[in-house]
């Protein structure tokens, strides 16, 4: 045997090392991060995520700090924050610090960050009441005060406009959308809101929709696909009919019907659901079939393998067999699909908003894009270019990561590509 020839001296038996060797997951992550495409994608998504998290700090019409002539120092900006803003902005630095504390185990750090985050979320949602922006033109108040000389000094956000400020520019001529200028780097849109501000606040919406709806889809897919693959037989037959039903209608058609037939804030089981969450749920409900197919195929292969058979023979509970033994071995293709899925969820949301049945009040990228054409036939190139570029770059990033993940997981394509 070749082993014997290369290793003539028999090795003494060594006690099994206590430290686990590098796991498959860690190997895949290292491989993905090492690829240039994935690096570009990850960097862009990090930028979008940071912009989204700190959106209130970057673009807000309320001054961060203001000192009036009377001598009071106040922060109107703080009063406008809601619980989500506070939690996100506090927890991001904590998470970054935790990342660099290499002394502790990864699990410990993640648990610490999550538990601190939970505490902060609970405290902030109890103490902070949602802001009621009742006054129209609130953004103008401090500017008027400043013009009247009432303000000693004022410290504003870098982009001093909130996304829903209307008529920020009171220009005399009736051009509503104005091209980029010194005051508005990316111009204004047809409600005379700042495009830059809406874009930055849209980051959070785009990323949340991508993640949450894909999470819902993956969960449904894993449950239905797992049941089909493990039990086979009748469960499989029934499950595949359901999958076929959802696959036979174009997804966009299903989405349009689902979204359009629900009103703005439906009450389901006594809970009022905001439109943005409704859209996430609907995108998730209509895009699970692919994941179910992947998991089903993997489980078909796995259930006949020895380790699963022995787990069954040991009398382990079904939950343990399915989720502890089979799922980690069959999840890889789902993860690849999911990273492409996040991109397409973002495209679906912006398409819905573009067609005018998605998000209405919220600053969505697709909703912005809709205003590029239509303002009395005038084409506003800045509204078309910047939001479109934002959607494209984000989707492109996810696709780059997906490709890198696929190549890292599948040794077959690796061999083919390197030849």
């Amino acid at each position: 045997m070749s082993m014997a020839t290369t290793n003539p001296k028999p090795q003494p038996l060594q006690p099994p090392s206590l430290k686990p060797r590098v796991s498959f997951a860690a190997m895949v992550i290292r491989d993905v991060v090492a690829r240039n495409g994935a690096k570009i994608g990850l960097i862009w998504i990090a930028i979008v995520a940071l912009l989204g998290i700190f959106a209130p700090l970057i673009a807000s019409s309320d001054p961060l700090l203001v000192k009036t002539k009377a001598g009071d120092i106040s922060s109107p900006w703080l009063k406008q924050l809601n619980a989500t803003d506070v939690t996100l902005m506090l927890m991001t630095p904590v998470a970054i610090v935790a990342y660099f504390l290499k002394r502790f185990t990864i699990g410990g750090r993640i648990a610490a960050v999550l538990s601190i985050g939970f505490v902060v979320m609970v405290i902030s949602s109890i103490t902070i009441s949602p802001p009621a922006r009742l006054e129209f033109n609130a953004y103008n108040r401090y500017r008027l005060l400043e013009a009247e000389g009432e303000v000693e000094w004022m410290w504003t956000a870098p982009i001093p406009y909130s996304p829903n400020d209307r008529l920020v520019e009171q220009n005399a001529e009736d051009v509503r959308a104005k091209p980029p200028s010194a005051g508005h780097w990316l111009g204004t849109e047809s409600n005379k809101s700042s495009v830059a501000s809406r874009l930055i606040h849209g980051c959070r919406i785009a990323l949340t929709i991508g993640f949450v709806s894909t999470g819902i889809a993956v969960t449904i897919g894993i449950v239905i696909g797992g049941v089909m693959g493990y039990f086979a037989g009748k469960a499989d037959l029934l499950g595949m009919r359901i999958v076929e039903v959802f696959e036979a209608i174009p997804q966009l058609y299903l989405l349009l019907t689902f979204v359009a037939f629900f009103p703005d804030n439906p009450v389901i089981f006594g809970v009022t659901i905001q439109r943005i969450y409704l859209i996430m749920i609907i995108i998730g409900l209509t895009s699970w079939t692919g994941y179910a197919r992947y998991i089903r195929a993997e489980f078909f292969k796995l259930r006949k393998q020895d380790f699963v058979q022995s787990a069954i023979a040991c009398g382990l509970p079904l939950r343990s067999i399915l989720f502890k033994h089979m799922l980690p071995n069959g999840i890889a293709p789902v993860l690849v699909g999911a990273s492409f899925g996040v991109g397409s969820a973002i495209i679906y949301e912006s398409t819905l908003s573009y067609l005018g049945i998605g998000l209405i009040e919220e600053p969505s990228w697709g909703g912005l894009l809709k205003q590029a054409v239509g303002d009395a036939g005038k084409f506003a190139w800045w509204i078309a270019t910047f939001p479109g570029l934002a959607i494209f770059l984000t989707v492109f990033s996810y696709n780059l990561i997906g490709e890198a993940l696929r190549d890292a997981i599948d040794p077959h394509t690796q061999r083919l590509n390197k030849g």
Partner: protein
Amino acid sequence: MLTYIIRRLLLMIPTLIGITLVVFLVMAMSPGGVGGALLKGEMGAEMDAEKTRAMKAYYERRYGLNQPLHVQYLRWLNQVSPLGFRTASQITYTEEEEAKAKTILKDLGLADNRNERERSYAVVKTITAYEDGDLVKNAAQIGAMLLRPKDALELFARVDLTPPQTLAPELDSLLAQEKSKRKAQEALLKALADGCEGVNRVHFTKPVIKWPDLGDSMAKGRPVSQLYKEALPITLLLNFITTPIIYIIAICTGVYAARHRGRFFDVASGAILLILYSIPVIWMGVMFIGFLANRDIIQLFPTNGLSSTTASSMSFLPGWGEDGFERGWLLDRMWHLALPIVCMTYGGFAYLSKIVRSSLLENLSADYVRTARAKGIEPHVVLWQHAFRNSLLPLITSAAHLLPGLIAGSLIVEQIFSIPGMGRLTIEAVQARDRELVLAGALVSGLLSMISILVADLCYALVDPRVSFD
């Protein structure tokens, strides 16, 4: 093979029922209700309460919206199914019979004005169809009953309706005075006609084979099939132009990239295709309209529609006319279709050529290709006849899923470029909550997708002799 096709076709029926049931339930569950948007009137302005109520009552009668959900759905299913019970509105009579019935009613004095003429005839026709009776005989009998409003109340029972509660006291008070007898007749006729109108009164005698009826659109008030007859050819035209283009470009780039693996073209095309794949159609469309079809920037292409307003007077082919070059109908159509077609193709070929490349690479590194090369077979024969033929399978699989994608893609493109196809119709239907149109759309697009999947499965057997369905 034939048994396989028949089995697959039969399996489509439960899937189609599932599709329409899902869409139906979503529409029924929606709190605004079916047709809710229709009640808002023009430009979202609220109509006055009485008019809204009247409209709502009309839609409920016309489309049976006040019935339990399962009854509504089963009615709709019966209406579209080719094998089922005929509804009263689908039964037709010969012109001769109709004319005779109408003259009888006229002679009885039931045709003073247009309303009365139509209502009395509709009542007679519905009752006859419902009972499967004789139109002429019924015309005489029912017409006579209509003249005696008190007796005519029995007519409601003949179509399984209960007369409105307020009707009997109203008739009593009207009949008390001799001069308002005429009014009583009118009130009764109106109530009866309302009851009979459009009602999908199912005629449960014997199931018949009939032509599927997609119903009437709520918002447009026209038969759905008629609307589709106008819109479907346009969408199919777009798709029939798009599909070959997608395949030709995808196969050319995919094969070239696979043959030159790792070289500049492979890397560059890989990056460019991924970029193209990531560009949302809405952005591409908006940029095209904004930059290439804009009077202020570059007016290279028309902004909307399928042909110019003068297209009908053009000759078919381009040629030289009195005022120089005339582009003709064909060129005009192509000029209008250029941008939409580009928008519909780029995503498809970006996706497909990656599949072509990877499956061809897999086959090129297989042993049988090496053997073929070693035998001295010419390289292009190895490539096209050995490797390429074997890499067609994943291409066919993705073709099956391309059609649903194309239908959805043309939805957006038609909206952006204002092309009056199925996509536009669908978006309008969804916005108006037009039940009949949305359900019909789900049915038609579901059917098209499933047929394309079936065709793809049959193509497997054609391409790969190992696959057999017998």
